Protein backbone atom coordinates (compact mmCIF):
# COMPACT_ATOMS: atom_id res chain seq x y z
CA UNK A 1 0.00 0.00 0.00
CA UNK A 2 2.60 2.51 1.07
CA UNK A 3 4.86 1.57 -1.89
CA UNK A 4 2.06 2.37 -4.33
CA UNK A 5 1.44 5.69 -2.67
CA UNK A 6 5.13 6.51 -2.89
CA UNK A 7 5.20 5.56 -6.57
CA UNK A 8 2.21 7.76 -7.31
CA UNK A 9 3.82 10.64 -5.46
CA UNK A 10 7.02 10.25 -7.40
CA UNK A 11 5.12 10.28 -10.70
CA UNK A 12 3.09 13.29 -9.68
CA UNK A 13 5.93 15.34 -8.36
CA UNK A 14 9.17 14.38 -10.10
CA UNK A 15 8.64 13.19 -13.64
CA UNK A 16 7.79 16.40 -15.37
CA UNK A 17 10.09 19.20 -16.27
CA UNK A 18 9.44 22.47 -18.06
CA UNK A 19 7.42 22.54 -21.26
CA UNK A 20 9.55 22.75 -24.45
CA UNK A 21 8.71 25.45 -27.00
CA UNK A 22 7.06 24.56 -30.31
CA UNK A 23 10.33 25.29 -32.14
CA UNK A 24 12.25 22.93 -29.86
CA UNK A 25 9.70 20.16 -30.39
CA UNK A 26 9.76 20.70 -34.11
CA UNK A 27 13.57 20.60 -34.22
CA UNK A 28 13.55 17.45 -32.04
CA UNK A 29 11.58 15.67 -34.77
CA UNK A 30 14.00 16.97 -37.44
CA UNK A 31 16.91 15.67 -35.36
CA UNK A 32 15.36 12.23 -34.99
CA UNK A 33 14.42 11.99 -38.70
CA UNK A 34 17.84 13.02 -39.79
CA UNK A 35 19.62 10.64 -37.43
CA UNK A 36 17.67 7.68 -38.74
CA UNK A 37 17.76 8.52 -42.49
CA UNK A 38 15.41 5.79 -43.56
CA UNK A 39 15.06 5.10 -47.28
CA UNK A 40 11.26 5.26 -47.46
CA UNK A 41 11.12 8.35 -45.30
CA UNK A 42 13.78 10.10 -47.35
CA UNK A 43 11.75 9.39 -50.48
CA UNK A 44 8.61 10.83 -48.96
CA UNK A 45 10.43 13.91 -47.67
CA UNK A 46 12.32 14.46 -50.93
CA UNK A 47 15.75 13.88 -49.40
CA UNK A 48 18.70 12.51 -51.34
CA UNK A 49 22.06 11.23 -50.20
CA UNK A 50 23.55 14.59 -50.84
CA UNK A 51 20.83 16.57 -49.09
CA UNK A 52 21.57 18.47 -45.90
CA UNK A 53 18.75 16.83 -44.02
CA UNK A 54 18.64 19.14 -41.03
CA UNK A 55 18.85 22.29 -42.99
CA UNK A 56 16.29 21.16 -45.57
CA UNK A 57 13.69 20.03 -43.06
CA UNK A 58 14.22 23.01 -40.77
CA UNK A 59 13.82 25.36 -43.62
CA UNK A 60 10.75 23.59 -44.98
CA UNK A 61 9.03 23.59 -41.59
CA UNK A 62 10.05 27.08 -40.64
CA UNK A 63 10.97 26.10 -37.09
CA UNK A 64 14.46 27.49 -37.29
CA UNK A 65 13.14 30.56 -35.54
CA UNK A 66 12.56 30.38 -31.79
CA UNK A 67 9.29 32.22 -32.30
CA UNK A 68 7.86 29.40 -34.35
CA UNK A 69 4.36 28.23 -33.33
CA UNK A 70 2.38 25.17 -34.36
CA UNK A 71 -1.14 25.58 -35.67
CA UNK A 72 -2.04 22.68 -33.39
CA UNK A 73 0.64 21.66 -30.86
CA UNK A 74 -1.40 18.75 -29.60
CA UNK A 75 -1.90 17.32 -33.10
CA UNK A 76 1.84 17.55 -33.78
CA UNK A 77 2.71 15.88 -30.47
CA UNK A 78 0.26 13.11 -31.26
CA UNK A 79 1.91 12.51 -34.66
CA UNK A 80 5.35 12.52 -32.99
CA UNK A 81 4.60 9.67 -30.58
CA UNK A 82 5.77 6.74 -32.84
CA UNK A 83 9.33 8.02 -33.10
CA UNK A 84 9.79 8.23 -29.30
CA UNK A 85 8.75 4.65 -28.73
CA UNK A 86 12.40 3.65 -28.41
CA UNK A 87 12.92 6.40 -25.83
CA UNK A 88 12.47 10.14 -25.30
CA UNK A 89 16.19 10.86 -25.00
CA UNK A 90 16.99 13.50 -27.56
CA UNK A 91 19.95 11.42 -28.86
CA UNK A 92 17.84 8.30 -29.33
CA UNK A 93 17.78 7.13 -32.99
CA UNK A 94 14.30 5.88 -33.90
CA UNK A 95 13.87 2.72 -35.92
CA UNK A 96 12.79 3.00 -39.58
CA UNK A 97 9.59 1.15 -38.77
CA UNK A 98 8.68 3.82 -36.20
CA UNK A 99 9.57 6.61 -38.65
CA UNK A 100 7.47 5.02 -41.43
CA UNK A 101 4.68 4.56 -38.94
CA UNK A 102 4.73 8.25 -38.08
CA UNK A 103 4.80 9.48 -41.69
CA UNK A 104 2.12 6.99 -42.78
CA UNK A 105 -0.20 8.01 -39.94
CA UNK A 106 0.30 11.77 -40.42
CA UNK A 107 0.41 12.87 -44.06
CA UNK A 108 0.14 16.47 -42.88
CA UNK A 109 3.47 16.04 -41.10
CA UNK A 110 5.09 14.97 -44.41
CA UNK A 111 3.75 18.11 -46.04
CA UNK A 112 4.85 20.17 -43.02
CA UNK A 113 8.44 19.05 -43.59
CA UNK A 114 8.27 19.69 -47.34
CA UNK A 115 7.50 16.21 -48.56
CA UNK A 116 4.80 14.90 -50.92
Amino acid sequence: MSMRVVAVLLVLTACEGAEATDAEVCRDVVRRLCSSRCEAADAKLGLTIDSNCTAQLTAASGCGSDDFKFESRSAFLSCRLPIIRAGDNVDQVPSCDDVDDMLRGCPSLVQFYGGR
Partner: protein
Amino acid sequence: MARRLSAVLLCGLAGCASMDESMRVERGPKLRDFERPRIVEGGVTGKVTIDPMAPGKLSLALSGYDTCRTERVEEFAEEHIRERRGAGAGASISAGVLFSAASAVALGLSFALSKEPDRTHLDGAGRYGPSQSQTARAWSIGLVCFGVPALAVGLVQWLRTGEEIETVKVEQIAGQRDETCNVRAVDGPVYLRMEDGSAVGPVPTSGGVLSFEAKPLKGPVDSFVFYEREVSLDEGSKSLVIAFNGCAKLERESLADPAAVATGALLKRLEATRACRHLRGDAVAAEQTRLEEELGRRREGGEAGTFLPGAKSLKSFEEATQAYPPRFTLHDGSADLAQGLDALTNQNVLVRGRVQAGLSPNIGVVAYADREVFVFLPSDAPWVHDDFPLGSSVELVGVVSGLQTVGERTAPLVRAVWMRKVR
Protein backbone atom coordinates in the same frame (compact mmCIF):
# COMPACT_ATOMS: atom_id res chain seq x y z
CA MET B 1 -3.14 18.91 -2.03
CA ALA B 2 -2.24 15.38 -3.11
CA ARG B 3 0.92 15.56 -1.03
CA ARG B 4 -0.96 16.58 2.09
CA LEU B 5 -3.50 13.81 1.68
CA SER B 6 -0.78 11.23 1.21
CA ALA B 7 1.09 12.42 4.26
CA VAL B 8 -2.05 12.20 6.38
CA LEU B 9 -2.75 8.71 5.02
CA LEU B 10 0.73 7.50 5.79
CA CYS B 11 0.70 9.00 9.25
CA GLY B 12 -2.62 7.25 9.85
CA LEU B 13 -0.96 3.95 9.07
CA ALA B 14 1.17 4.49 12.13
CA GLY B 15 -1.88 3.71 14.23
CA CYS B 16 -1.56 0.09 13.14
CA ALA B 17 1.48 -0.31 15.38
CA SER B 18 1.06 -3.74 16.92
CA MET B 19 2.04 -4.50 20.48
CA ASP B 20 2.94 -7.77 22.17
CA GLU B 21 0.76 -8.02 25.23
CA SER B 22 1.04 -10.51 28.04
CA MET B 23 -0.68 -10.85 31.36
CA ARG B 24 0.68 -12.52 34.46
CA VAL B 25 -0.71 -12.90 37.92
CA GLU B 26 1.39 -12.77 41.06
CA ARG B 27 0.02 -13.83 44.39
CA GLY B 28 0.80 -11.38 47.14
CA PRO B 29 0.72 -11.74 50.91
CA LYS B 30 -2.24 -13.12 52.82
CA LEU B 31 -4.34 -10.28 54.14
CA ARG B 32 -6.65 -12.05 56.53
CA ASP B 33 -8.56 -15.23 57.42
CA PHE B 34 -12.23 -15.25 58.10
CA GLU B 35 -15.18 -17.60 58.26
CA ARG B 36 -18.17 -17.14 56.02
CA PRO B 37 -21.43 -18.85 56.88
CA ARG B 38 -23.61 -19.97 53.99
CA ILE B 39 -26.77 -21.94 53.68
CA VAL B 40 -26.76 -24.35 50.77
CA GLU B 41 -29.28 -26.81 49.52
CA GLY B 42 -30.01 -29.58 51.96
CA GLY B 43 -32.29 -32.51 51.49
CA VAL B 44 -34.99 -34.65 52.98
CA THR B 45 -34.49 -37.49 55.41
CA GLY B 46 -36.99 -40.04 56.53
CA LYS B 47 -37.44 -42.03 59.68
CA VAL B 48 -39.39 -45.24 59.30
CA THR B 49 -41.41 -46.60 62.17
CA ILE B 50 -43.58 -49.71 62.30
CA ASP B 51 -45.80 -50.53 65.22
CA PRO B 52 -45.02 -54.14 66.22
CA MET B 53 -48.73 -54.53 66.92
CA ALA B 54 -49.53 -53.55 63.33
CA PRO B 55 -46.59 -54.75 61.22
CA GLY B 56 -48.57 -54.26 58.01
CA LYS B 57 -48.52 -50.52 58.30
CA LEU B 58 -45.44 -48.40 57.71
CA SER B 59 -45.07 -44.79 58.83
CA LEU B 60 -42.51 -42.44 57.41
CA ALA B 61 -41.70 -39.17 59.15
CA LEU B 62 -40.16 -36.66 56.74
CA SER B 63 -37.67 -34.05 57.85
CA GLY B 64 -36.37 -31.37 55.59
CA TYR B 65 -33.05 -29.76 56.39
CA ASP B 66 -30.63 -27.21 55.07
CA THR B 67 -26.91 -27.54 54.95
CA CYS B 68 -25.27 -24.80 56.97
CA ARG B 69 -21.81 -24.45 55.53
CA THR B 70 -19.03 -22.55 57.19
CA GLU B 71 -16.28 -21.73 54.77
CA ARG B 72 -12.84 -20.80 55.98
CA VAL B 73 -11.71 -18.11 53.59
CA GLU B 74 -8.20 -16.80 53.11
CA GLU B 75 -7.96 -13.40 51.48
CA PHE B 76 -4.90 -12.57 49.43
CA ALA B 77 -3.65 -9.57 47.52
CA GLU B 78 -3.14 -10.47 43.91
CA GLU B 79 -1.36 -8.41 41.29
CA HIS B 80 -2.58 -8.62 37.72
CA ILE B 81 0.36 -7.39 35.67
CA ARG B 82 -0.30 -6.52 32.04
CA GLU B 83 2.93 -6.15 30.07
CA ARG B 84 2.98 -4.36 26.71
CA ARG B 85 6.05 -4.52 24.55
CA GLY B 86 6.61 -3.15 21.05
CA ALA B 87 9.02 -5.70 19.69
CA GLY B 88 10.21 -3.57 16.77
CA ALA B 89 10.18 -0.15 18.42
CA GLY B 90 13.97 0.30 18.35
CA ALA B 91 14.38 -0.74 14.74
CA SER B 92 11.39 1.34 13.70
CA ILE B 93 12.68 4.47 15.41
CA SER B 94 16.15 3.96 13.88
CA ALA B 95 14.74 3.55 10.39
CA GLY B 96 12.37 6.48 10.90
CA VAL B 97 15.16 8.80 12.04
CA LEU B 98 17.42 7.69 9.19
CA PHE B 99 14.80 8.14 6.47
CA SER B 100 13.54 11.40 7.89
CA ALA B 101 17.06 12.79 8.11
CA ALA B 102 17.78 11.69 4.55
CA SER B 103 14.56 13.36 3.48
CA ALA B 104 15.58 16.59 5.15
CA VAL B 105 18.99 16.45 3.50
CA ALA B 106 17.40 15.85 0.07
CA LEU B 107 15.01 18.74 0.62
CA GLY B 108 17.86 21.03 1.63
CA LEU B 109 19.91 20.00 -1.36
CA SER B 110 17.00 20.71 -3.68
CA PHE B 111 17.41 24.42 -3.05
CA ALA B 112 21.06 24.29 -3.99
CA LEU B 113 20.72 22.16 -7.10
CA SER B 114 19.96 23.40 -10.63
CA LYS B 115 16.38 24.23 -11.51
CA GLU B 116 17.10 23.85 -15.21
CA PRO B 117 15.02 21.09 -16.81
CA ASP B 118 16.74 18.01 -18.13
CA ARG B 119 17.03 18.87 -21.80
CA THR B 120 18.35 15.47 -22.76
CA HIS B 121 14.80 14.14 -22.64
CA LEU B 122 11.69 15.41 -24.37
CA ASP B 123 8.64 13.32 -23.65
CA GLY B 124 5.43 12.66 -25.53
CA ALA B 125 3.72 15.64 -23.95
CA GLY B 126 6.44 17.96 -25.15
CA ARG B 127 8.01 18.44 -21.73
CA TYR B 128 11.64 18.13 -20.74
CA GLY B 129 12.78 15.87 -17.91
CA PRO B 130 12.67 17.12 -14.29
CA SER B 131 15.38 19.37 -13.01
CA GLN B 132 17.90 18.16 -10.38
CA SER B 133 16.05 20.26 -7.82
CA GLN B 134 12.76 18.54 -8.62
CA THR B 135 14.38 15.12 -8.46
CA ALA B 136 15.86 15.87 -5.05
CA ARG B 137 12.46 17.01 -3.76
CA ALA B 138 10.83 13.86 -5.09
CA TRP B 139 13.36 11.78 -3.19
CA SER B 140 12.75 13.93 -0.17
CA ILE B 141 9.02 13.19 -0.33
CA GLY B 142 9.62 9.47 -0.87
CA LEU B 143 11.98 9.26 2.07
CA VAL B 144 9.69 11.23 4.34
CA CYS B 145 6.83 8.91 3.44
CA PHE B 146 8.87 6.01 4.79
CA GLY B 147 10.55 7.87 7.58
CA VAL B 148 7.64 9.60 9.28
CA PRO B 149 5.38 6.53 9.58
CA ALA B 150 8.31 4.41 10.78
CA LEU B 151 9.17 7.07 13.32
CA ALA B 152 5.54 7.38 14.39
CA VAL B 153 5.12 3.61 14.75
CA GLY B 154 8.33 3.35 16.70
CA LEU B 155 7.43 6.21 19.02
CA VAL B 156 3.91 4.88 19.62
CA GLN B 157 5.33 1.46 20.46
CA TRP B 158 7.96 2.97 22.68
CA LEU B 159 5.45 5.15 24.51
CA ARG B 160 3.05 2.26 24.99
CA THR B 161 5.74 -0.13 26.19
CA GLY B 162 5.44 -0.76 29.88
CA GLU B 163 3.34 -2.57 32.42
CA GLU B 164 0.12 -1.87 34.24
CA ILE B 165 -0.32 -3.35 37.66
CA GLU B 166 -3.76 -3.84 39.09
CA THR B 167 -3.95 -5.05 42.64
CA VAL B 168 -7.08 -6.93 43.60
CA LYS B 169 -8.22 -8.91 46.57
CA VAL B 170 -8.90 -12.56 45.93
CA GLU B 171 -10.43 -15.15 48.16
CA GLN B 172 -9.46 -18.76 48.45
CA ILE B 173 -11.57 -21.25 50.29
CA ALA B 174 -9.17 -23.12 52.52
CA GLY B 175 -11.75 -25.41 54.02
CA GLN B 176 -15.38 -25.87 54.80
CA ARG B 177 -17.53 -27.45 57.42
CA ASP B 178 -21.06 -28.63 56.70
CA GLU B 179 -23.69 -29.10 59.34
CA THR B 180 -27.29 -30.09 59.08
CA CYS B 181 -29.48 -27.24 60.20
CA ASN B 182 -32.99 -25.86 60.10
CA VAL B 183 -34.47 -29.30 60.49
CA ARG B 184 -38.24 -29.16 60.13
CA ALA B 185 -41.10 -31.42 59.28
CA VAL B 186 -42.07 -31.18 55.64
CA ASP B 187 -45.30 -32.06 53.92
CA GLY B 188 -45.96 -32.93 50.33
CA PRO B 189 -46.67 -35.75 47.94
CA VAL B 190 -44.46 -38.80 48.40
CA TYR B 191 -44.13 -41.55 45.81
CA LEU B 192 -43.12 -45.08 46.66
CA ARG B 193 -40.57 -46.37 44.17
CA MET B 194 -40.97 -50.10 43.86
CA GLU B 195 -38.15 -52.55 43.19
CA ASP B 196 -39.46 -53.13 39.65
CA GLY B 197 -39.01 -49.42 38.90
CA SER B 198 -42.70 -48.47 39.03
CA ALA B 199 -43.99 -45.71 41.26
CA VAL B 200 -46.97 -45.79 43.58
CA GLY B 201 -48.62 -42.67 44.89
CA PRO B 202 -48.63 -39.90 45.61
CA VAL B 203 -49.19 -40.62 49.28
CA PRO B 204 -50.10 -37.46 51.19
CA THR B 205 -48.41 -36.50 54.43
CA SER B 206 -49.91 -34.98 57.51
CA GLY B 207 -47.71 -33.20 59.99
CA GLY B 208 -44.70 -34.49 58.08
CA VAL B 209 -45.76 -38.11 58.45
CA LEU B 210 -47.22 -40.51 55.94
CA SER B 211 -48.57 -43.99 56.52
CA PHE B 212 -49.52 -46.75 54.16
CA GLU B 213 -50.64 -50.33 54.35
CA ALA B 214 -48.77 -53.28 52.87
CA LYS B 215 -51.88 -54.95 51.50
CA PRO B 216 -52.45 -52.80 48.37
CA LEU B 217 -48.81 -53.06 47.36
CA LYS B 218 -47.95 -55.53 44.62
CA GLY B 219 -44.24 -55.66 45.23
CA PRO B 220 -41.44 -54.61 47.54
CA VAL B 221 -40.79 -50.95 48.23
CA ASP B 222 -37.33 -49.79 47.21
CA SER B 223 -37.28 -46.13 48.20
CA PHE B 224 -39.34 -42.98 48.73
CA VAL B 225 -39.38 -39.98 46.43
CA PHE B 226 -40.28 -36.48 47.62
CA TYR B 227 -40.49 -33.84 44.90
CA GLU B 228 -38.28 -35.92 42.59
CA ARG B 229 -35.63 -36.33 45.26
CA GLU B 230 -34.96 -39.59 47.00
CA VAL B 231 -35.60 -39.50 50.71
CA SER B 232 -32.46 -40.63 52.50
CA LEU B 233 -33.02 -43.21 55.19
CA ASP B 234 -30.82 -44.19 58.12
CA GLU B 235 -29.67 -47.78 58.57
CA GLY B 236 -32.44 -48.58 61.03
CA SER B 237 -35.10 -47.33 58.66
CA LYS B 238 -33.62 -49.32 55.78
CA SER B 239 -33.73 -52.47 57.90
CA LEU B 240 -37.34 -51.77 58.77
CA VAL B 241 -38.26 -51.31 55.08
CA ILE B 242 -36.61 -54.66 54.28
CA ALA B 243 -38.52 -56.29 57.15
CA PHE B 244 -41.74 -54.61 56.00
CA ASN B 245 -41.20 -55.89 52.48
CA GLY B 246 -40.58 -59.39 53.83
CA CYS B 247 -43.79 -59.40 55.84
CA ALA B 248 -45.73 -57.95 52.90
CA LYS B 249 -44.46 -60.75 50.68
CA LEU B 250 -45.55 -63.34 53.23
CA GLU B 251 -48.99 -61.71 53.34
CA ARG B 252 -49.34 -61.61 49.58
CA GLU B 253 -48.15 -65.12 48.85
CA SER B 254 -49.49 -67.93 50.97
CA LEU B 255 -47.58 -71.17 51.12
CA ALA B 256 -49.17 -74.43 52.02
CA ASP B 257 -46.40 -76.98 51.65
CA PRO B 258 -42.73 -75.97 51.31
CA ALA B 259 -41.97 -79.24 49.61
CA ALA B 260 -44.25 -78.25 46.75
CA VAL B 261 -42.48 -75.05 45.71
CA ALA B 262 -39.49 -74.60 43.47
CA THR B 263 -36.14 -74.05 45.11
CA GLY B 264 -35.84 -70.48 43.84
CA ALA B 265 -39.21 -69.52 45.31
CA LEU B 266 -38.29 -71.34 48.50
CA LEU B 267 -35.11 -69.30 48.86
CA LYS B 268 -36.95 -66.03 48.29
CA ARG B 269 -39.63 -66.92 50.78
CA LEU B 270 -37.03 -67.90 53.34
CA GLU B 271 -35.31 -64.60 52.80
CA ALA B 272 -38.61 -62.78 53.28
CA THR B 273 -39.32 -64.80 56.38
CA ARG B 274 -35.96 -63.97 57.94
CA ALA B 275 -36.50 -60.30 57.22
CA CYS B 276 -40.04 -60.34 58.58
CA ARG B 277 -38.91 -61.99 61.75
CA HIS B 278 -37.44 -58.67 62.84
CA LEU B 279 -41.00 -57.38 63.03
CA ARG B 280 -43.15 -60.31 63.81
CA GLY B 281 -40.70 -62.40 65.79
CA ASP B 282 -41.98 -65.79 66.78
CA ALA B 283 -45.10 -65.39 64.64
CA VAL B 284 -43.07 -66.43 61.62
CA ALA B 285 -40.48 -68.55 63.43
CA ALA B 286 -42.39 -71.74 62.70
CA GLU B 287 -42.58 -71.02 59.02
CA GLN B 288 -38.89 -70.10 58.94
CA THR B 289 -38.01 -73.38 60.55
CA ARG B 290 -40.12 -75.31 58.07
CA LEU B 291 -38.52 -73.51 55.15
CA GLU B 292 -34.97 -74.00 56.45
CA GLU B 293 -35.57 -77.64 57.09
CA GLU B 294 -36.85 -78.06 53.57
CA LEU B 295 -33.91 -76.11 52.16
CA GLY B 296 -31.46 -78.13 54.26
CA ARG B 297 -33.04 -81.30 52.98
CA ARG B 298 -32.60 -80.15 49.40
CA ARG B 299 -28.99 -79.12 50.00
CA GLU B 300 -28.19 -82.46 51.54
CA GLY B 301 -29.80 -84.04 48.51
CA GLY B 302 -27.36 -82.12 46.34
CA GLU B 303 -30.01 -80.13 44.58
CA ALA B 304 -28.72 -77.27 42.49
CA GLY B 305 -29.83 -73.65 43.13
CA THR B 306 -30.14 -73.96 46.88
CA PHE B 307 -28.17 -70.79 47.45
CA LEU B 308 -29.38 -67.28 46.74
CA PRO B 309 -28.45 -66.08 43.28
CA GLY B 310 -25.23 -64.19 43.46
CA ALA B 311 -24.24 -65.57 46.84
CA LYS B 312 -21.24 -67.28 45.34
CA SER B 313 -20.38 -64.38 43.08
CA LEU B 314 -20.00 -61.84 45.85
CA LYS B 315 -16.93 -59.75 45.28
CA SER B 316 -16.30 -58.08 48.61
CA PHE B 317 -17.05 -58.10 52.30
CA GLU B 318 -19.28 -55.09 51.78
CA GLU B 319 -21.32 -56.90 49.13
CA ALA B 320 -21.65 -59.85 51.45
CA THR B 321 -22.85 -57.56 54.25
CA GLN B 322 -25.45 -56.10 51.93
CA ALA B 323 -26.58 -59.48 50.66
CA TYR B 324 -26.71 -60.95 54.19
CA PRO B 325 -27.52 -57.95 56.39
CA PRO B 326 -26.47 -59.04 59.90
CA ARG B 327 -29.19 -59.14 62.45
CA PHE B 328 -26.77 -59.72 65.30
CA THR B 329 -23.25 -58.53 65.88
CA LEU B 330 -20.96 -60.70 67.99
CA HIS B 331 -17.77 -59.21 69.37
CA ASP B 332 -16.26 -58.01 72.63
CA GLY B 333 -18.70 -55.73 74.37
CA SER B 334 -21.54 -56.10 71.87
CA ALA B 335 -25.09 -55.99 73.18
CA ASP B 336 -25.99 -59.10 71.20
CA LEU B 337 -23.73 -61.33 73.33
CA ALA B 338 -26.73 -61.93 75.52
CA GLN B 339 -28.66 -63.57 72.68
CA GLY B 340 -29.21 -67.23 73.13
CA LEU B 341 -28.48 -69.87 70.56
CA ASP B 342 -32.16 -70.14 69.60
CA ALA B 343 -32.29 -66.47 68.70
CA LEU B 344 -29.07 -66.74 66.71
CA THR B 345 -29.88 -69.87 64.78
CA ASN B 346 -30.60 -69.28 61.12
CA GLN B 347 -29.87 -65.58 61.51
CA ASN B 348 -27.29 -63.55 59.68
CA VAL B 349 -24.52 -62.50 62.02
CA LEU B 350 -21.44 -60.34 61.94
CA VAL B 351 -18.61 -61.86 64.05
CA ARG B 352 -15.45 -59.99 65.01
CA GLY B 353 -12.80 -61.97 66.88
CA ARG B 354 -9.48 -63.81 66.66
CA VAL B 355 -8.59 -67.03 64.88
CA GLN B 356 -8.10 -69.53 67.69
CA ALA B 357 -7.67 -72.83 65.89
CA GLY B 358 -8.02 -74.67 62.62
CA LEU B 359 -9.92 -77.90 63.08
CA SER B 360 -9.98 -79.01 59.46
CA PRO B 361 -9.25 -77.47 56.04
CA ASN B 362 -12.68 -75.85 56.02
CA ILE B 363 -13.57 -75.42 59.70
CA GLY B 364 -11.86 -72.95 61.99
CA VAL B 365 -12.50 -71.54 65.43
CA VAL B 366 -12.99 -67.82 66.00
CA ALA B 367 -13.06 -66.56 69.59
CA TYR B 368 -14.66 -63.35 70.83
CA ALA B 369 -15.31 -62.19 74.37
CA ASP B 370 -15.39 -65.43 76.36
CA ARG B 371 -17.01 -67.38 73.57
CA GLU B 372 -16.11 -69.12 70.39
CA VAL B 373 -17.80 -70.20 67.19
CA PHE B 374 -16.91 -72.73 64.55
CA VAL B 375 -16.62 -71.13 61.16
CA PHE B 376 -17.41 -73.16 58.06
CA LEU B 377 -15.30 -71.98 55.16
CA PRO B 378 -16.86 -72.87 51.80
CA SER B 379 -14.14 -74.30 49.58
CA ASP B 380 -15.29 -72.38 46.49
CA ALA B 381 -15.42 -68.91 48.07
CA PRO B 382 -13.10 -66.38 46.41
CA TRP B 383 -11.61 -65.32 49.74
CA VAL B 384 -10.97 -68.79 51.13
CA HIS B 385 -7.38 -68.84 49.90
CA ASP B 386 -6.50 -65.82 52.02
CA ASP B 387 -4.17 -66.57 54.89
CA PHE B 388 -5.80 -66.45 58.34
CA PRO B 389 -2.96 -67.26 60.77
CA LEU B 390 -3.67 -68.20 64.39
CA GLY B 391 -4.24 -65.16 66.56
CA SER B 392 -5.09 -62.86 63.65
CA SER B 393 -8.09 -60.57 63.96
CA VAL B 394 -10.89 -61.34 61.55
CA GLU B 395 -14.46 -60.34 60.84
CA LEU B 396 -16.96 -62.43 59.02
CA VAL B 397 -20.53 -62.38 57.80
CA GLY B 398 -22.40 -65.66 57.88
CA VAL B 399 -25.45 -67.60 58.89
CA VAL B 400 -25.66 -69.44 62.23
CA SER B 401 -26.51 -73.09 61.71
CA GLY B 402 -26.99 -74.28 65.28
CA LEU B 403 -24.63 -76.16 67.59
CA GLN B 404 -21.86 -78.29 66.13
CA THR B 405 -19.56 -80.75 67.88
CA VAL B 406 -16.08 -81.37 66.54
CA GLY B 407 -13.98 -83.72 68.65
CA GLU B 408 -14.44 -82.62 72.22
CA ARG B 409 -15.47 -79.08 71.38
CA THR B 410 -19.03 -77.91 70.92
CA ALA B 411 -19.90 -74.44 69.65
CA PRO B 412 -22.33 -72.66 67.31
CA LEU B 413 -21.43 -73.18 63.65
CA VAL B 414 -21.41 -70.13 61.41
CA ARG B 415 -21.47 -70.75 57.67
CA ALA B 416 -19.25 -67.92 56.51
CA VAL B 417 -20.34 -65.94 53.49
CA TRP B 418 -17.26 -63.74 53.63
CA MET B 419 -14.37 -63.53 56.04
CA ARG B 420 -11.48 -61.11 56.06
CA LYS B 421 -8.58 -60.08 58.22
CA VAL B 422 -8.76 -56.81 60.12
CA ARG B 423 -6.11 -54.85 61.96
